């Protein structure tokens, strides 16, 4: 299988899982959230005010009433966004690495907020 075909198939699987399966995923709290609930420190995790501007808060595509459709759409958008960002970052790095030695040691932009 050529790399392009492999990537296409793998991406289709990822998008398919995010769109079709994620709406049916367990809504129980995950490991850390469960322990946080049981031990009473869940409310120490407060979202930052920057996150009020999140386009798709809580994996529910805004303005879509049907919860499962909203989750599936969020999965679709998120999976493709991550693909494009990962691909783009890798492409930049692969390109810059060929030319200048030790060039572009950029820090990951978003981490500057941390």
């Amino acid at each position: 299988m050529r790399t392009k075909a492999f990537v296409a198939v793998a991406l289709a699987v990822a998008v398919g899982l995010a769109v079709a399966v994620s709406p049916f995923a367990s809504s129980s709290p995950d490991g850390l959230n469960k322990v946080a609930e049981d031990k009473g420190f869940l409310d120490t995790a407060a979202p930052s005010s920057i996150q009020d501007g999140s386009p798709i808060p809580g994996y529910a595509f805004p303005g879509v009433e049907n919860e499962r459709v909203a989750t599936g759409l969020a999965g679709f958008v998120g999976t493709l966004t991550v693909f494009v960002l990962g691909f783009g970052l890798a492409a930049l790095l692969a390109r810059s690495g060929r030319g200048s030695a030790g060039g572009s040691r950029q820090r990951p932009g978003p981490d500057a907020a941390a």
Partner: protein
Amino acid sequence: MAIPAIAAVAYGLEVANRDLDESRVPLLGVVAAFVFAAQMLNFPIAGGTSGHLLGATLAAVLLGPWLACLVLAVVLTVQAFAFADGGITALGANVLNMGVLGALAAGLILGAAVRAFSPDRATFLAMVAGVSWIAVMVGAAATSIQLALSGTIPLGTSLPPMLGVHALIGIGEAVITVAAVSAVLAARPDLVALGRFPARERAPGPRTAEEGVT
């Protein structure tokens, strides 16, 4: 917690800048996409709790540990900013615990085991299962330690339940990671960076030396 996370991600960028072969560029994108999708798929475990793939081991097996740090940083950053999932101030800790530590633990152990034992495919997959579980447990333990250091909850209170629940989640991690790696091995064994499996016949062009552990 942001500092070691940024350091590891920066080193990931450095590794990518130095070694990333252009033919592997789309692979980084697709691994990130798969990890994002899989993290949405919470599976039920005992007692009203769920778990989901973290994906650090999968990324490390396919891309090597340092590129895996990059992949998890991309995934967790998008989750925090686009989906309000995971705090912004906790992003460094999340990248460290769900990405860097797991990717390095799994990647370095597996890399060493592959060098030492030159495993066949079945043994390799068993090793992948083992390091998947270890990566989840390392992340859970690190989270407990950081919660204790930040004064949120004493280590003795959070560590036992965190390890208990993640021992089960780690089994899910192992199952999904082995399934995904098996699928890649069946289609394109040469794309598994930490494996040493040759391309099948008629694979397009020679692959360059795999990234592996450096």
